[in-house]
Every structure is written in C-alpha cells, then in structure tokens.
C-alpha cells in the first residue's frame, strides 16, 4: 500500500500519522480481502510515505496499456475520488473466475455481463475501503454510483492528476492487489481533498 500525505497531515504528531496510516492500511486489507473472499487469492500491503502526486504518477501517465477503470466520486460535501483499476488481461481472468468459467477462457469482447461484473467488483472494493475509514473516523464517506471505462492507463492518471491540481491539499492512498498464482493484478486508489483531510486531522485534536 502506498500513502501520499499532504502538509495538513504532516502537521500531525508522528504517532497520529502512524494511526492514520494504520487506518488506511486496515481499510486496504479489508477491501483487498473482499476480492480475496470472492476468488480465493491473497494480497500484500505495505505503507510508504510519498510526497508529490505528479512525481508519483508521472511515469504512469504515458502508459498505453489498456485497463478497466471503475471510478466513483465521493458525495459532494466530502470532496474526493476513488478508483479501482485492472489491466485488460487480469480483468479477463477475474471475470472468468467470477462467472464460473475457465480462468483462461478467451472471449471476443467485453460485453454487458463482463462489464457489469467488473463494475460490481469495483463497487465492492470501493465500498469496503470507504466503510472501514468511515467507521474509524466515526463519519460517513459515501460515494456516487461507479462508472466504468476501458482505455489507456496513462489517460486515466493524467485526468486524476488534473483533478488534484484544483485542490489545496491532496492525500492519496493506493492499494495494489496481486495474485501471482492466478496472474491477476489490480489497484485501488483513493484521492482525498481538503475537506475530508481536515475532518481526519480534526479527529486527532
């Protein structure tokens, strides 16, 4: 798990930052576990402190690999966006498993059934992460119904960075999911803006 903190969070005491990281890590594990339960594979999470969203994702912004991206925006008073992203081949495998097919079954194109399945996986991952964070901070972080997009990874990251340019403070938490055995990988990313970060910081006062 990668966590990028902003200046507002850095003003917290060290132990408070550790608690916040711990909450995000627990949420990451819980959302990873939601996939894990569904398809029986394990995930690992580590926590790092990173500083700049642009530097963090610059290399990703030019990637032309195709991926499925499930995006949801937090309800307006909170301010933030959240994504679940999976490369095309991993999505094919995951969808096959969830639809009770052979994991390596080839199908021509992603139809309604496959897209809905992937959207639902994204919805579950997002819901579990936000639910855990909400519980800890005794608040309610709700999200809009998710949208799904199938396109180049780079264009998604550029849009995400553009979104962060409008915010004074940005905090990003990323949870990578991987199963070496099944050859499936994915990422959950949460971008939080000014208001919700302030809510977290105020909680520690």
């Amino acid at each position: 798990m990668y966590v990028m903190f902003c200046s507002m969070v850095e003003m917290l005491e060290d132990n408070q930052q550790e608690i916040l990281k711990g909450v995000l890590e627990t949420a990451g594990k819980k959302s990873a576990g939601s996939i894990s339960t569904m398809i029986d594979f394990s995930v690992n999470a580590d926590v790092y402190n990173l500083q700049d969203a642009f530097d963090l994702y610059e290399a990703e912004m030019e990637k032309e690999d195709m991926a499925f991206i499930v995006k949801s925006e937090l309800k307006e008073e909170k301010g933030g966006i959240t994504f679940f992203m999976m490369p095309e081949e991993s999505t094919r495998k995951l969808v096959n498993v969830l639809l009770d097919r052979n994991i390596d079954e080839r199908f021509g194109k992603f139809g309604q059934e496959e897209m809905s399945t992937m959207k639902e996986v994204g919805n579950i991952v997002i819901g579990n992460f936000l639910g855990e964070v909400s519980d800890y901070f005794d608040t309610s972080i709700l999200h809009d119904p998710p949208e799904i997009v199938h396109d180049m990874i780079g264009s998604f990251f550029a849009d995400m960075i553009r979104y962060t340019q409008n915010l004074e403070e940005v905090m990003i938490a990323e949870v990578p999911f991987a199963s070496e055995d099944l050859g499936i990988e994915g990422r959950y990313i949460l971008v939080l803006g000014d208001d919700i970060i302030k809510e977290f910081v105020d909680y520690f006062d």
Partner: protein
Amino acid sequence: MNKEEVGIGQFKVIKDSGELIARSLGSCIALVIYDRTNKVGGMAHVLAPEGNDEKRLDKPAMYPEPAVKRLVRKIITHGGDKDNLEAKIAGGAQMFSFKSDGAPGEKNVKAIKKSLEKRNIEITGEDVGGNKARTVKFDVNSMSMKIEMKI
C-alpha cells in the same frame, strides 16, 4: 528517424526531420505548431485549461497560454518565422467527468484555441473530443499528424 517523446507538461521542437510523440492523451491536448517553409515544428503536451504555472517550473507546458507562448518562442529560436506558423491539435477527450471541473477536455480545447487565435495562428487540422484516449505523432518532415486509438 529521430523520435522524441513529449511528456505531460513538456514541449519539444525539432528542425528538418524527426517525430514528436505524446502518448495516452485523455483530456490532455497535443498542440503542434510548425513552420512548413523553414521546416521546424514543435509539440506541447498540455494538461489542464488553467492552473498555477509557478507550481511546477519543470513542466513549462502544463497550461495552454504558457505552452503556446513558449512553443512559439522556441520555434522562432530554431529558425521559424512567426508569420508562417500553423497549428494542429488533438486530444481533449471526456474520459471521466468530475463534479468540480465539468468538461475539462472541452475547456482545454477552448483555451488552446483562444491562445492560438490571439497570435493569429491558424489551426489547419484537429481531432478533439470524444471519449477515447489518443496517442499523437507528428512528423516534422511531412508536417503531418497521426492519431492512434485503441479499442
């Protein structure tokens, strides 16, 4: 052929021959300005319609107005004539909509066009909008732009 990648917020200029490439553009814009007579052309990879230009000094082409200004200046220093300049643009797709910023791709296109119009630079070709990402290549020898999309 000399091929140069133009990263986000960057701009590059080539004289005589070579290819400039901006990959995986969503709402971003690949802005190309060139002087056909003097065989010099450049590309900028613009991120957003507006923002604080001072925030990232290492990304001089993040926003339309500074991108156009700097690209024109560099083309002239490479032998281009400001009276010969023409432009092509591509990108500005609507991949995601965020409540806070409406239709960024569309705003990006408008802001680029405004900056070009201000300098009387004619747009000779464009492929903008839609909801698919593009990779854009510009050949400085033929002054032609090639758009790639994946479906």
